[in-house]
């Protein structure tokens, strides 16, 4: 059972190994040539791997990410964009790891532009990866691509800021979190019934109802339940939590 598990865990490695064995039997000279080609790149890779490792560690240990996140909501304009770029560039992990953090920033008041900047720079502008890129593609290539990419990330942020409204993003997916009260903007038709019933709790923003309440108090309980019932599309999600 154990070797099977090993194979499943290292599918690619296994496939490549089998290919080499097959080559060795059928065309040994091609196999040696392929091996020689690989060793060259392998040596190059191992020259740069420790650097990537060290840089990842140093960034994680030295840069106070929480502080950047904390100051993020307050700062807007160009300074906010720079902070977003820094936050994305120093973070490790695949692009989808940026989604929950971006959602959190959004709820703290970050603009759509800054969310786009965080996601994009998270994907492309990895600081430790710059060493890798410079190694295999040259410093000129790395520097030019870096500068161009940063410019375009800012442009994309600005364009997205105009095209997508903040409030439409705010509502999406919040019902998955521990929020007590939220409105699914995919379902809301913007009829305004809930706003009429409880103007201190709901508001219409960009043709959709949104929740403007910071904390749900027991006093709100009855009126919220009433709006949940009245909502024509059942877009209001109310997690009664400990209230009941």
């Amino acid at each position, binding site marked *: 059972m154990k070797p099977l598990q090993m194979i499943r865990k290292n599918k*690619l490695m296994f496939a490549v190994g089998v290919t080499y064995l097959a080559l060795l039997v059928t065309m040994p000279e091609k196999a040696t040539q392929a091996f020689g080609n690989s060793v060259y790149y*392998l040596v190059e890779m191992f020259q*740069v791997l*420790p650097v990537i490792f060290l840089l990842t*560690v140093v960034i994680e240990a030295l840069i106070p990410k929480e502080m950047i996140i904390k100051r993020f909501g307050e700062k807007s304009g160009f300074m906010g964009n720079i902070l977003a770029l820094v936050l994305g560039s120093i973070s490790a992990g695949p692009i989808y790891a940026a989604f929950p953090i971006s959602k959190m920033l959004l709820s703290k008041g970050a603009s759509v532009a800054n969310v786009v900047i965080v996601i994009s720079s998270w994907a492309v502008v990895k600081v430790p990866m710059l060493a890798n*890129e410079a190694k295999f*593609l040259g410093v000129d*290539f790395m520097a030019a691509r870096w500068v161009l990419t940063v410019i375009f990330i800012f442009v994309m942020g600005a364009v997205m800021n105009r*095209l997508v409204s903040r409030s439409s993003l705010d509502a999406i997916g919040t019902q998955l979190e521990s929020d007590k009260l939220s409105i699914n903007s995919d379902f809301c038709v913007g009829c305004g019934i809930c706003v009429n019933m409880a103007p201190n709790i709901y508001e219409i923003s960009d043709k959709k109802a949104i929740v403007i309440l910071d904390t749900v108090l027991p006093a709100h309980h009855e009126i919220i339940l009433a709006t949940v019932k009245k909502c024509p599309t059942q877009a209001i999600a109310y997690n009664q939590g400990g209230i009941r």
Partner: protein
Amino acid sequence: MDIFTIGFWLVSIVLFIVSLVKSKQKTVDAMKKSKMMMGSMIGEIVAIIFLIGIVLTFIPPESIKSVLGSENTLMAVIIAALAGSITLIPAFVAFPLVGSFIDIGASIVPAVAFLTTLTMVGIVTFPLEKKAFGLKFTLMRNALSFGAALVIAAAMEVIL
């Protein structure tokens, strides 16, 4: 080792010492985290590098030049950008892969397009992004990133 790799080595070692002096605990924790992350990738990295060896042996440089060379750039760029959008290999191994293609004569324009869409455009991660930010945001961001990749690639051709 070339001068820039040595430079990167020096900078990262100095920073690492600074980090150790400043907070040993934090540094050790970060090392553990990085070790886990890189450890899971190292098998894949080695495998892809040996795959590069096979590809380079069997695809003659002339044919790479004719497909990804500077002759029919527009087609090559679009194909490279599409390939980058749908594949999900770590950027980590993408650099030696792309570097090897350039070494044997591929033009840099499709290479840049591939690298940029590989990281910024995610067909595979599309459902996740849609769940977090909605369809409009996700469509727009990915479309804009795809366009940006093409423009960045073209600009690289002019600069380099």
